[in-house]
């Protein structure tokens, strides 16, 4: 299997006033196609920073990063945006759905941005909602959905443009145990269907469901 993620010696430093914060201290990581990787570690260990770099919403201070065979550590803003649109799927802890849009419209948003025509877009959005079990809720707005339902809509949105990599940041963090378990099952199904997943979590059950667990501490990967 080819490497979807190829991170080499990633360093990420932030300047906070006079002080320099070393969020990542030379992280190297390879994630292969169809892999399901959980990144775990204490708060502030750098796992979300790593996820942001993998999602191309942040740039490493030094190091090299390739996603799906393309160097992404020095992309311009426009190219990074386009890369995220077509190659990366994001799931956030707080779902972050557009409150003004219905469930279906939220899923359609990245499809519309990618230039997909109306009818095709609608069909694709409905298929994805069907996949996450929310077809009947297509016309509901986020405020009319439960937390678990909102997260499933967010997952459908993340899958919209058939990304090479699905990234999830604490996807069960805002859910109760029962709904969290449903989410874990959904991630397993996604991976079984061929989606490469990297998830950052404190949730031990979610981490256990992953095929590989990466432990981090103080900006470094352990072991």
């Amino acid at each position: 299997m080819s490497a979807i993620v190829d991170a080499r010696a990633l360093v990420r430093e932030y300047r906070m006033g006079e002080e320099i914060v070393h969020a990542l201290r030379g992280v190297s990581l390879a994630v292969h196609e169809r892999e399901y990787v959980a990144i775990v570690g204490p708060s502030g260990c750098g796992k979300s920073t790593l996820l942001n770099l993998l999602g191309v919403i942040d740039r490493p201070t030094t190091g090299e990063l390739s996603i799906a065979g393309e160097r992404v550590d020095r992309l311009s803003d426009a190219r990074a945006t386009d890369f995220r649109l077509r190659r990366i799927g994001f799931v956030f802890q707080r779902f972050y759905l557009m409150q003004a849009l219905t469930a279906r419209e939220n899923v359609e948003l990245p499809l519309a941005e990618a230039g997909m025509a109306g009818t095709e877009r609608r069909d694709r959005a409905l298929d994805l909602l069907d996949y996450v079990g929310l077809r009947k809720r297509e016309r509901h707005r986020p405020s009319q959905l439960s937390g678990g339902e909102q997260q499933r809509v967010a997952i459908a949105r993340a899958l919209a443009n058939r990304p090479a990599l699905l990234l999830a940041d604490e996807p069960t963090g805002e859910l109760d145990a029962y709904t969290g378990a449903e989410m874990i099952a959904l991630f397993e199904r996604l991976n079984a269907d061929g989606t490469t997943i990297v998830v950052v979590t404190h949730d031990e059950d979610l981490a256990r469901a992953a095929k590989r667990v990466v432990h981090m501490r103080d900006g470094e990967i352990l072991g």
Partner: protein
Amino acid sequence: MIATLALSSLIRHRARTALAILGVAVSAAMLLDMVMLSSGMRESFRSLLLSQGFQLRLSPKGTLPFDTEATIRSADSLVALLRSRATVAAVSPVLGGQLHFAVGNATLTATALGVDPAVQGDYELIAGHSPTAPDEVVVNDAVLRALGRAVGDTVRAAAGYDPQLRTLSGQRVLRIVGRVRFIYLALDQRAAALPIATLRAMNGPASAGRASLAMVRLRPGVDVDRERAALEAQLRTVTVISTSEALKQVDERLSYFRQLAVILGAVSLVVGFLLVTTLVTVSVNERIGEISVMRAIGVRRWRVVAQILLESSVIMLVATPVGLALGLVTARWLNSILARFPGLPERIDFFLFQPSAAWTALGLLALSGVLAGVYPSWRGASLPIATTLRQEAVG
């Protein structure tokens, strides 16, 4: 999709959106009023001067029409000379004076205009007819009301009055043959017009052959400025003023009005600009998480900017016609107040609606509103995604 997001953002905050629209509309109304005020009096005066088609006015040398009590000597020969010119279509001599009407033991004074009824350009007939005989007079409503008379009645009038001796001179019995509206006089100013020969006769020998003013209507196609220069060179005892020169005089006298209007108009523009900037900035600040997520899932920066600009554009698009209507209503109201200034001709409007100027002003406001949204929207779309999402998650 972007349009849906923009509109729903406005709908979500209905009260705020409504207040913003109202604020921009008030700003637009004020800007429109100031634009109307800056050009209104000038245009109104121009249309007043040209309303009867006289392009040139001849007054005693060194004076403006009716600015002093000076009169033109040998006015009849001047009028004959003017009428003999191929370029001249009509000449209307006017002699200004006063009529003192006897009302019981008292007298009632009115402005008197001695005119040539066949070519006069000083009044519009409302009822009756213009004087056709020497003892006929036309008066305005203010005189009719004060005298308690009607068209067809006769009145005793004098051209002179000595208040110490309480004696009238140059008395005549005149028959009121018409009810008129004087074009250049104030609405409440009592005034009458009678044949110029009658007024001269009533004034006595001092007025013989004199006129205060001669108005000249040129034939179509004649160059007004060239004719004015030619007349001024030929006629040494008069000042010849064209409508454009009269307007220059008006412009000079009204310059402070225009400056005030420009300053207040600029203030309106700035207020509209700041209002939209504030609104869009607040809106962007409230939605930085949403904006960052949009950027994270691949929505292009310019699309985010476009969405926010669309919001400000919708506010402007709705507010502008509201402002237009509000501006027209307030202009009419203010005009009715200002029109009560004493001595102003009835037809003078302070606020004149000129579509091109109005649309320019409102277009300027709309543009400033949209531009006001550019910076905050670009700033919102340029926020560092990862940092913003982390702060939002912590918040």
